[in-house]
């Protein structure tokens, strides 16, 4: 029962924060709302028992990434307000409609899909495999089975670091004419 209450509460917080990310016209508020969403998601990870991931989520997202966002926003010192939403009623309508239909379809797919999964579970009874949901097993998996991916990510991050520096040193614009 507490699980349920906790879930519904977290879900509510996350969704509200998410909504305010996309609805707030001031990007600072959006950023703060995003931080709130991150925290909510992190808490959801806790409810799912993924403690390490939850921690990382807090540190990386809510900490580093969000600070980056806010710092950039501060750096810009936006003088004039950008129109919050795109123009064009028809495309806007199509966009909203497509998003809505997508959400509906996905939800529909989920309900259909999970029923199928339940049914499969009921017939096959797969759940025999033991599952150590702790940080150690995560680390073992990461550094044994997925060590190549891990290292590749390291390289990617290095590249990104160099690329970012290069980009921010450039004089700006995608079509630098001068």
């Amino acid at each position: 029962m507490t699980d349920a209450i906790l879930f519904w509460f977290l879900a509510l917080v996350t969704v509200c924060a998410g909504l305010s990310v996309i609805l707030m016209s001031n990007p600072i508020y959006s950023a703060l709302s995003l931080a709130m969403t991150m925290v909510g998601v992190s808490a959801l990870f806790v409810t799912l028992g993924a403690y390490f991931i939850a921690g990382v989520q807090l540190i990386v997202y809510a900490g580093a990434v969000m600070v980056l966002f806010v710092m950039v926003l501060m750096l810009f010192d936006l003088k004039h307000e950008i129109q919050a939403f795109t123009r064009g009623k028809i495309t806007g309508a199509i966009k909203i409609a497509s998003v809505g239909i997508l959400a509906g379809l996905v939800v529909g797919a989920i309900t259909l899909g999970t029923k199928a999964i339940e049914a499969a579970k009921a017939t096959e009874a797969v759940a025999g495999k033991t599952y150590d949901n702790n940080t150690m097993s995560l680390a073992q998996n990461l550094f044994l089975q997925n060590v190549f991916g891990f290292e590749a990510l390291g390289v990617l991050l290095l590249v990104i670091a160099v690329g970012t520096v290069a980009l921010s040193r450039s004089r700006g614009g995608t079509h630098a004419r001068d």
Partner: protein
Amino acid sequence: MSHQALIAILLLSPFVGFLLNGLRYRSQNYVLAGSIATGAVFVSFICSVMLMMDLIAAPADQRRLTANFFEWIAVGGFKVNAGFVVDQISSIMILIITGVGSLIHLFSIGYMHHDKGVTKYFAYLNLFVFNMLILVLGDSLLTMFVGWEGVGLCSYLLIGFWFSDAAKAAAGMKAFITNRVGDAAFIIGMFILFFSFGTLNMYELNALAPTTVEASWLGAATLGTLMLFIGATGKSAQVPLYVWLPDAMAGPTPVSALIHAATMVTAGVYMIVRLNPMFVAAPNTMMIVAIVGAITAVMAATIGLTQYDIKKILAYSTVSQLGYMFLAVGVGAFGAGMMHLMTHAFFKALMFLGSGSVIHAMEGEQDTRLMGGLKKYLPITHFTFLMGWLAIIGFPLFSGFFSKDEILWQSFASPRGSVFLWVAGAIGATLTAFYMTRLMALTFWGKSRVPKEVHPHESPVIMTIPLIVLAILSVVGGFIGVPHLIGEYLGHIPNYWAEWLAPVIKTLPEAAAPHTATQEWALMTTSVTLALISAFVAYRIYTSGKGTNEAIAKAFGPVYNVVNNKYFVDEAYFGGIINPLVKQSQNLWMYIDVNFIDKTTHVISDMTKGAGSLARSFQTGNMQQYAMYIGLGVVVVLTFVLMR
């Protein structure tokens, strides 16, 4: 010397002359150029004489000297050698070509000495002789065709020799293209003969010629020879392809003498004589040949009546005389045709050279209305021209008399002749006498109409010697072929000519209707009398100064107008064929190429472009729109998956 070597020297000597003069084309040393060229042709002449003596020495049935130099084309069953033959027919031709040719070369040294391109001129002239020798010596139709086109080329170059005059350049082009029309038919004729008889070698063809006369119009021999004859109408200036010859007078006068009177234009006659067994097998073709010859003889003669340009008169006269030769071969009198070919070569070359001498004296003037009374200034020219005149009007015992009389008689008496052909021939002879006398009267006799600033003078020796030699030949040349009837009367002179040619001439298979000597005498007297009367009338009219243009125009009205404009044949060709062709070609280009094919291509490319710009309209560059397409795509895919 072996006859192979002789033939090689005969052929190559003018070619070497061409190369020598051609490589130093800038030189203006007319003596050197002329000596090289004349010498080259003279060497050939000596070779011809030696070959002729070899032939005479050989027994009558073995008079054939061949020289096979190399295999020219060999594809499948089609083999043609660079093979040359000297026999009874071609030996006469090479003598005429090199003999008359040497004289004309000699004359040219005097005539062309002031010209800047004199070396080039002699080079071309030598090249012409070379090609003409290939034409007459070639043992197959294809080797003959090599010379056939080669002389056309030289004719083109020589007519357009003074190319900076647009009209002269155009005349050269006209000659070449008109000849090409004939040549195209000649090519087809060769194909017909080759695919029917399997060879182009003329001896083999003659041997293979059908022995029974082909009655059908569609027989191989008939069609083949007809096509070859069309080729001959081009080269030998017969109706309907004669139009180039009068224009060809734009070339230097010795060229007209050599190419457009004595040699090249007779190639058609030579070709028919060469292939006489094949023609004999095709009576329909021969009928056409005779009719075309008769029409040409009369038509050209009538046009000749109205011309004032001294060379144009001679040109139409040439066309008319060529008509006689075709009339002769058309009725099966191949020997008479060849005979007239030779005598005509003498007297017409003489007259052309004479006219050259006159033009030379008149400082380039060719209009006979500005001449008259030149007799006293140009005694030698006048005298030699007089001989030529007597020969051409067929004055008894002059060379032209024998050949022309024989043709007229045969056109009546031959099994393939008819009285109509004789009448046409006689009219032609009468007209010839008239316009030639008119020419004499306007040029040499009567009162002088020479402009004051022109001082006519007799030509130098180098030009008069050829005139004298040709005059002698014109007078006596006929005696080697005296018709049987007259020969008896003159003291049993045998007809050397007929005997010489007999082994290579096929007699007509039809039996000749019996004719009496009286008939022959009567016809001969009639035609000669008519000619003399008309010559006398012309003499009276034109020496008295009555024969002005206006007077005659008044007398004959529209008829004169039509004739004076050469029956509007040139106009008809230009208006009916050439201009529409050019115009339609323009249309083809504009409408089919540019407006149809290219337009179609452009429409296709525009369609591609249109499809591209349609697709481009989705690529707005707006990233959010792209994201929307992704979203829509996912929606569509998911819908598809879920609905399944």
